[in-house]
């Protein structure tokens, strides 16, 4: 099965490859691409959310109290980078809300929406990550990290506190609402660092494909 060989060159490359193929194909597909939201995106949201939810309880303690690196962030970043802002945003919202509800029995809305902001921010530049070359090169890396730093800053320094104020109002409650989170800027910084090291690991995987 030749198509398999093509696919298996690299799973990562293949994800990209598929999109490329889809983009170029028949009239029907093009009509669908106009909506920029085809079956693949629907399924990506579904399975991406499943991944995100399943990984909710998988955390790496950072040694600092109440600070964890969450592997599910990597899932969000990856999906947003491959499938764009809609998928990134929706997986952020639904994934976080469902994950909270399933595992913690309560949903903290002031955490849910910032997650979506990050997904959207990363997803906005999906086309720039040079996915079609199969390489997550230096330039892509820079774009990605600018997007994620800005995204995290907006999400955790602006949106999250804003929602906290709107919904919970009291400053002390921020401690409860955020539980593991400390100050908002610190949260943004932690997360940015997490994404950055993640993207570095990811780049390591892709480097071998550079021509």
């Amino acid at each position, binding site marked *: *099965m*030749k*198509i*398999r*060989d*093509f696919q*298996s*060159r*690299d*799973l*990562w*490359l293949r994800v990209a*490859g598929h999109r490329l*193929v*889809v983009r*170029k*194909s*028949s009239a*029907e*597909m093009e009509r669908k691409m106009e909506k920029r939201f085809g079956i693949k995106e629907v399924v990506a949201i579904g399975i991406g959310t499943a991944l995100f939810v399943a990984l909710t309880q998988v955390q790496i303690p950072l040694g600092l109290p109440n600070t964890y690196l969450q592997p599910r962030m990597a899932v969000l970043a990856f999906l947003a980078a491959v499938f764009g802002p809609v998928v990134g945003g929706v997986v952020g919202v639904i994934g976080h809300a469902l994950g909270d509800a399933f595992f913690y029995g309560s949903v903290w809305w002031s955490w849910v929406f910032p997650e979506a902001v990050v997904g959207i921010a990363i997803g906005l530049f999906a086309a720039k990550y040079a996915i079609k070359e199969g390489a997550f090169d230096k330039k892509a890396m820079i774009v990605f990290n600018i997007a994620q730093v800005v995204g995290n800053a907006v999400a955790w320094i602006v949106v999250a506190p804003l929602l906290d104020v709107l919904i919970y109002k009291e400053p002390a409650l921020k401690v409860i609402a955020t539980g593991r989170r400390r100050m908002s800027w610190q949260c943004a910084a932690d997360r940015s660092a997490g994404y950055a090291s993640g993207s570095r690991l990811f780049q*390591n*995987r*892709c*480097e*071998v*494909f550079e021509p």
Partner: protein
Amino acid sequence: MTPIIEFKDYTFKYRSQVEPTLRDINLNIYPGEKVLIVGPSGSGKSTIAHCMNGLVPFSFAGDSTGTLRIKGEDPAKLGIFGMSKLVGTVLQDTNGQFIGLTVAEDIAFALENDKVPQKEMFQKVDEVANVVEVDSLLSHAPWELSGGQKQRVSMAGVMVDDVEIFLFDEPLANLDPATGKRAIDLIDKISGTRKATIVIIEHRLEDALYRDVDRIVVVGEGRIVADVKPDALLAGNVLIDQGIREPLYITALKHAGCTVKEQSRPQHIESMELEPYKEQVRKWFKGAAFEKKTLNTESALCVNHLDFSYVEGRPVLKDIHFDIRKKEMVSIVGKNGAGKSTLAGLICGFLKPTSGAIYLNGEDISDQSIKERGEKIGLVMQSPSQMISKPLIFEEVALGLSVRGVPEEEIKERVYETLKICGLYPFRNWPVSALSYGQKKRVTIASILVMNPDVIILDEPTAGQDYRHYTEIMEFLKSINEKFGITIVMITHDMHLMLEYTDRAIVIADGQLLADDTPANVLTNEVIADKAYLKKTSLYDLAVRCGIPEPSQFVERFIHHERGQREGGGRNGKNSDL
């Protein structure tokens, strides 16, 4: 009569490929026919299927020349949705194809997309659920079903659409032998009652031929190399030339020196005219060499009266007891979900037994951690993508050593040595992603081998592989077993594998040890085969029908002969893709 599927001088090239995958295909399939398409991996048989259901060119783009007509229509014009009204596809991955949250919803999926009113849906779903006998499971979720049940749901899911063509893409790939038999039966039933056209893509020829087919199309290197009646195909040599496994009884007849004739109707062993061959088979049986393997007495892995349950009172494994000797190659067989994987989990320490113990080289390992056990017992997962986490081959193989803090120099030495054994040394600095599936499988084996384990456990090492890749993987395992004396345990439901490569089969059914015997004895024992969802080997039928009183002896001799042939230069240059 006009054909319902018509390929005319059809050539197709994927956009991502340089060479066409299909060349000059001329193929006519007529309404109501039941056609089997066989061919090795990479032959283009799946691409033919994709052309029929519209995945080519809509999901996999490419360029074609020549014409393709499905019921007089051009798929490229009809679109993938138009095609789905004509052709119903049952995919190989039954779990992936199961989209709905319950059986009923999954069956109704196509109707929902067609805006069929709910009332009508209820009626139709009930109707087809009846046909495929899942009517008692309508509210079940996918994880409550077995692989065979999921596949039947998939069939129902395409039947609701009243399609005229049913396309089965490797329907047997993930099923145990008895369930596979049932699937073929059901396909036969659909073809009989619905008067539909059936196209089956499969490389497990013997199992697919359990019920009559009208024609077999053999695909090789993108071309059709044969398009004949089953009897004619089995009488010829096309299969061997294309690297497709013949039914075992045909191979046995050939070993006995018989020339299989088309007139003898060799499609089914039960109804084949054996009179002309009997004498010769019996003669061969008497003369064939046979050697009883003397077993090593030293124990490698001993499972001692093991019990396990997730929930108290509902045992998953009951009193499992066996002793695997050093340097043995053993298969653990049984129906899907019988507890085989649970057993592997217990041996590797992922799960803790409720009672009983496990001994490695005579030493109780109950108190050892997963990591400690991992140094002596290696586990190779079914799919390489479940294991491979590093971009480069060297790194992937070195992973187990580097996390154990082995000095860099030693890592390099050991990894290189292992890569040489596995035939991967030339690729040591390649990205894993550039390898074929079979090579990736080797990388995962290498990454275990590098730790010098005493025992390697492989979960379905050959699932979904064609004959060539199967042989390649198994010969490789055999060579490391012989050269390094590593004990190899394989969890499988591939009967060929257990017959041809293992000396012993541990049969587990419903959580209990059913048998611990030679594969030949297991596969000629109807009671055991039935209980464990295995299938009696056709060699048994051949022996019985030829009047040989000890069918299991016949099987033993056959295997011995086969092994001798493989070792004696049986490699015909097709064994390696390196």
